[in-house]
């Protein structure tokens, strides 16, 4: 189909509404936040308009550096875990009977209807000493005594992976369904075992989809602030937790804004880097 470029201003009409929404609900608040991040904080919870770098300077400390580093590490770990579990799962799902696919997809979609609070408390119950899964292990004879698995890094990872998993599957599913099933059969006739065929054909053929999924889950996980608090120790708290703390409990809006801007910039830089690396490999 041939598409004419828009000739008159009226042709851009359909774009006005989304552009307006984006401006009102994204550009304006974000711009406000950037502005506030340079404001001068007043003792007692207020701030006055100014242009100072104090807030950013305060952020450049070992403590906040560690928190930022942990936040990025956690987001990357969740993204990798989701993709590593999600690809074989979605691959098997896309090759199974239609009925089974529907049941699984409905179950996964229903996870999306759960709020982060519910997911957090459900997992903290499951990981508790009194009512948790370790009681089941004791009953099965796998463990001697029930124990608490939370708070811990593992609990945070598990709940966050659980929360992001449906998105992972939903992004991977169309690509895997569209993948020609004869590709793996061809690999098998050429001497690759099913696992090797999966690793040498399915995974590389889906490289771009996998990269997109990693980025999506990474950004999704970077914003998480409730699950680390519910299931982790203070050293497992993310930058988002500190931002909330500064904004709401310490009433230090300029500093919270500065941290948020910094987080956005760092994640944008990482995404850009990932895309650039992907393109480099594509070009090769």
């Amino acid at each position, binding site marked *: 189909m041939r598409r004419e470029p828009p000739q008159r201003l009226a042709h851009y009409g359909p774009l006005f509404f989304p552009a307006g929404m984006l401006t009102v609900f994204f550009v304006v608040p974000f711009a406000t936040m950037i502005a506030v991040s340079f404001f001068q904080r007043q003792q007692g919870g207020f701030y006055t308009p100014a242009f100072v770098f104090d807030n950013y300077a305060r952020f450049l400390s070992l403590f906040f550096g560690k928190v930022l580093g942990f936040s990025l590490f956690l987001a990357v770990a969740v993204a990798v875990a989701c993709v590593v579990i999600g690809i074989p799962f979605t691959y098997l799902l896309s090759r199974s009977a239609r009925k089974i696919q529907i049941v699984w997809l409905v179950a996964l979609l229903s996870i999306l209807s759960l709020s982060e609070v519910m997911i957090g408390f459900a997992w903290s119950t499951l990981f508790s000493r009194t009512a948790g899964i370790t009681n089941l292990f004791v009953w099965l004879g796998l463990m001697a005594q029930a124990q608490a698995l939370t708070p811990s890094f593992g609990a945070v990872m598990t709940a966050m992976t659980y929360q992001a998993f449906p998105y992972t599957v939903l992004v991977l599913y169309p690509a895997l369904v569209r993948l*020609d099933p*004869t*590709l793996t*059969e*061809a*690999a*098998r*006739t*050429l*001497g*690759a*075992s*099913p696992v*090797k*065929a999966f690793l*040498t*054909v399915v995974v*590389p*053929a889906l*490289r771009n989809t996998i990269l997109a999924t990693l980025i999506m889950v990474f950004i999704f996980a970077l914003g998480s602030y409730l699950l680390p608090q519910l299931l982790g120790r203070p050293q497992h708290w993310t930058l988002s937790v500190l931002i909330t703390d500064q904004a709401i409990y310490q009433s230090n809006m300029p500093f919270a804004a500065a941290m948020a801007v910094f987080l956005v910039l760092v994640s944008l830089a990482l995404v850009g880097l990932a895309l650039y690396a992907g393109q480099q490999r594509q070009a090769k």
Partner: protein
Amino acid sequence: MSGLNLSHVTKQFGTFTAVNDVSLSVPDGTFVCLLGPSGCGKTTLMRMIAGLDLPTGGSIELAGADITKVPTHKRDLGMVFQSLALFPHLTVGENIAYSLRIRGVAKDVQKKRIDELLAMIHLPGFADRSVAKLSGGQRQRVAIARALAISPKLFLLDEPLSALDAKLREAMQVELRQLQQRLGITTIVVTHDQREAMTMADTVVVMNGGEIRQAAPPVDIYRRPADSFVADFIGQTNLLPVVPDGAGRASVLGEVVEGIALPTGAAKGTLSVRPEDVQLTAPGHGAISGTVTFVRDLGGAIETFVEAGGTQVIAVCSPRNRPDVSVGQSVGIRLDPATSVVLAR
């Protein structure tokens, strides 16, 4: 015994029998075409030979070893798929060398083999190209080269040429046959195109309803079909009823034809006569009488449609022997027992 041997191979999907008790022996170095209409079980049979589907009964032997339950990747075969299934993320050279890479062959050996195979398929210097940028015929050749990279014991092709246009397909048929003869590799091709099967095969295996109806060299399949399905499926044919007359002699369309007898032990039969073997003469003198209903001049051949005893008989002549007939004219039909076959079913 060497070569490929199928004995009593059966495949059921639920209650549906896709392949029913098929036994076939393919000697080393022969070219076999599995030919039949869609749904006849030919692709399922090939997938079982490749190990992509497991038979529900029977056994498959390759070079003397039972491979019925050997997984695909341990069968050392080469297969070309209908979709070609070239790996989109690999270059032409990497596609061809895939089976070598999987087997851990050294890089320089791989490179040498790629060059050899690219020369064989007349695409030298294509190693670093992306498969997405190839034409249909080139992709076809790359798929063939990839399947042959390890010099497999068995070369399987599932409807390999169906995606190509008619002219290229004819050229590739000849090329594929020449390649097979040069390499002397045992080859099995699945096709629904009888012309393709006749061009390439040493043995044509005609299948229908999950069973082998006839396995024979192309000329025999054409000249001596085993039953009316084969006669009708391969080329054009006239199937005429053969019934006994009052004296018990075989009669075709109301005339007793010298040299044609009923099949032994059968009350009636079917006579298969190729249109080019039907002779049109003047009516009477013991010829079957009929009326011309249509004449079709195709330039290279002239088809005359004759209605005789309620059955339509088609006669084909070359333009040099153009019959002097017109629609509505009464003509005689002569059948040569030497070129016609009486079939029991």
